[in-house]
């Protein structure tokens, strides 16, 4: 019976619009839900991600990037957190272009807090992106 159900749900084709909304939700936190006209969700989820990202920068957090100078497995120490940071979409890209948040400020007491806020902002936006995608695909009410 469970196999039947899995097989049936597998047949449902994901509309192209859902992919675009997923992309918008990744690019600008909250935009995916705005396009779905889920105003409260957009305000709560997008707002939380924006606040977390800006607080992280304010606390002196550090955005990670693979520069090509890393040796051996050292690249993993940059790559994994970078994947988390990239979750904030254009916020990360704009900061990268403007070189904001890429300078380490380890002397600050709140530096580690800032790092954690920035990382989790990206991870939460991945969650918000999947939520917007599921709503657009009709998998979530």
């Amino acid at each position, binding site marked *: 019976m469970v196999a039947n159900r899995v097989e049936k749900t597998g047949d449902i084709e994901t509309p192209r619009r859902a992919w675009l909304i997923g992309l918008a939700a990744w690019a600008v936190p909250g935009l995916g839900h705005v396009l779905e006209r889920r105003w409260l*969700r957009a305000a*709560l*989820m997008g707002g*939380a*991600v924006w*606040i*977390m990202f800006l*607080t992280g920068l304010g*606390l002196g957090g550090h955005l990670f990037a693979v520069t090509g100078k890393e040796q051996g497995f050292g690249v993993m120490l940059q790559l994994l957190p970078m994947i988390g940071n990239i979750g904030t979409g254009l916020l990360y890209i704009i900061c990268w272009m403007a070189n904001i948040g890429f300078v380490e400020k380890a002397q600050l007491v*709140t530096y580690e*807090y800032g790092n*954690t*806020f920035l990382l*989790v902002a990206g991870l*939460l936006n991945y*969650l*918000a992106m*999947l*939520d917007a995608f599921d709503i657009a695909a009709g998998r*979530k009410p």
Partner: protein
Amino acid sequence: MKHLLWMAVFAALVAVVFGVSAKGGDRQRLVYGLKVFGEFIAIAFLLGWILYFIPFR
């Protein structure tokens, strides 16, 4: 005190996203969000006290 404040802000923001993205009715999601927030705070206090008694130096 600032450490506690930032930890509480962090817990609140994560709880909001977890609560909103959870399944169920509005009330269930609100309770879930509050539970996540409470668990963050409770575990942080618990770990804090455990680490307090471990002599690192």
